[in-house]
């Protein structure tokens, strides 16, 4: 149960944590802008968080994905595919439900994901989204995601040392 006291303690604890740079890799995005609005909605369905698991919002998964779209080591085809996939998804949900993915109900989301994962492009797109979501979950926080090492704490992961002081990319 979340109490006011635990929220305050949590807040105090957060203030004591070292400041983490998100400027070097992850890029704060306007969530209402495409493809980020759609991808953020899919991220919440793929990895909702809850319990002791961090949420995509806490991990800054969408900001991290914006970093991926600017990463010189990620090839242009992959970047295009990540964006195009969101557009193709919304074209489909527009035909089937008359609305963009992020406006659908949770039950409709599940129905769409089941369909999507059964198509070659859809499975590949979801695979890509999850792989970058895992990076946001488990990267060193210098990349601007895995905020406060929340992903590491959740899975009991111990990083290797020396850790990067800044993203090498």
């Amino acid at each position, binding site marked *: 149960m979340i109490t006011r006291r635990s929220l305050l303690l949590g807040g105090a604890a957060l203030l004591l944590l070292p400041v983490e740079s998100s400027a070097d890799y992850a890029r704060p995005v306007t969530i209402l802008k495409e493809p980020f609005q759609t991808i953020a909605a899919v991220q919440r369905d793929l*990895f909702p968080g809850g319990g002791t698991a961090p949420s995509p919002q806490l991990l800054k998964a969408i900001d991290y994905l914006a970093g991926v779209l600017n990463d010189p080591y990620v090839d242009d085809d992959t970047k295009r595919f990540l964006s195009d996939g969101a557009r193709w998804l919304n074209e489909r949900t527009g035909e089937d439900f008359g609305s963009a993915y992020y406006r659908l109900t949770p039950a409709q989301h599940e129905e769409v994901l089941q369909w999507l994962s059964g198509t070659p492009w859809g499975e590949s797109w979801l695979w890509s989204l999850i792989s970058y979501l895992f*990076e946001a979950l*488990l990267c060193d926080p210098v990349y601007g995601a895995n905020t406060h090492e929340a992903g590491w704490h959740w*899975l009991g992961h111990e990083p290797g040392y020396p850790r990067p002081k800044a993203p090498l990319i």
Partner: protein
Amino acid sequence: MKQYDLCIVGSGAGAAPVAYELSRAGYSVLVLEKGPYLTEKDFTKDEIAVSRRSIYTPRLKDEQHVVETYNSDGSIERVTAEASGWNFWNGSMVGGSSNLMSGYFHRMKPVDFKLRSTFGAIEGANVVDWPITYEEMEPYFTKVERVVGVSGRVVEHPFQEQRSTRDFPFPPTWEQPISGWFDTVCKTLGYHSIPTPRAVLPYDALGRSGCSYSNFCGGYGCATGAKGNARAALLEKAKATGRCDILPDVFVYRLDADRQRVTAAHYFDADGNSHTVKAGTFVVAAQAIESVRLLFNSKSAFHPDGLGNANGQLGKNLIFSAGGSGQGRFEFFRLNERQRFELMTRGAFVNRSLQDWYVYRREGRTYKGGTIDFLFEHANPVSRAMRELYDDDGHLVWGSRLQKRLEHAFKASRVFVFEVFNDWLPTDNCFIGVDEGVRDKWGMPVGKIRLYSHPHDLDVGAFLADKAENVLRQMGAVEIQSDISSAPPPNLVAGGCRFGKDPKASVLDPSCKMHGIDNLYVSDGSFMPTGGSVPYTWTIYANAFRVADAIKAALKAKPNRL
């Protein structure tokens, strides 16, 4: 222009021993390396950069290969690496891919030097005996133990090779408690558990720091210098003589040669400017594929089909390490508290191998087998998480099901893996060339790799994997599986400049000097006519020390004329 006694192309395990030996013997040496000069302070355990983005290898849009494979009807499938993502680069930096190795160091066995005469011909394969024996190579294996630093413990087993020293100069690194579980099960099964020798220093020695047991070794640069990479172990000491210059960020694109001598090397610097180097003796050690590519791209009126290709042997008999890998999972709920604690010990090495089937008999026939190394799955968290993406029916998993799978994988189980190493038989169908139609960022034709694995390789690999799976089963692992395939491991590549006594059937002579060229040696893994059933790095190091002795002897007998 400064002139050198020796110019070496490449700076990895095949290059560094030559630079080390020749500079210490009083000769001036220049090492030309395409990648940057990185040292311990540059290496961190950054999975995103190092493993997920491969920052230590060239970007494929700048530098790539053409890869050809056989379809089932025998036709050839051709793809570029850029289009397919098929990456054959390893470590592009001073010290080469030895920076990123795990350092599993097994010596080749005496039988590896005489496969043809021991096992006879295999249809469709170009198996030959080496032109030298294990006994000739043994002093150099020993030298690597001492100079590069190999830790381990010699135990008696049926295929323990002869040694000129009783034991390794350094004791084994800190070992996982699970190594004891492994030893117990092997004893029960009648197998001989071998402490895997490692090119990792357990404590400060040889002017380097000992291992910090970071839990992130293979695939990462070493931040202490404990790993016996070519730069830390040899090149820094060569440089300290004052006679060895190391030039990073330069790409050697061509060698000039007259009929019998190489006269110059041409390279591009980081700004794309071309330079020329003169030296008395040249050594090529850019790893098998790139060494062959350079020799093809060095064709001239004297050598119209490529340098060293007068008899059409250049690039032929490309080999990799055959085999594959497998795994099993230890579930916490099947273990007691002490076992769980032992299982989750981090940082230490498993350091266990089996070679009981290095040679084996089956159905009345004798086979050359191989080595099985055992270890925990890599600590890289993203790659561990990616294993959980599909359920047992092969369906993508998401939502709370995915989160539960991750929690189970990270907090309630641990995956134990094995790697199988057996011979990739050399054949006419697996070779290196160049593709004139695809150029790199400097405008040079890229290397072309034709891939083929002999069915025999898969047969032997599957036999060994079956033995390894049985060990995991007896240890109590579940979800046991293995993947023995014909997919070539890019980091375990050799051949293409086969050495031998007959110039018509080889590129190099037994000292690894090019047939017909007085002052050109090739000292990386491309000299190997067969690979042995072990990882290659120790053999490459040892042979490069042997080549260094040959060069010293040649220079003593006939000093360089520039």
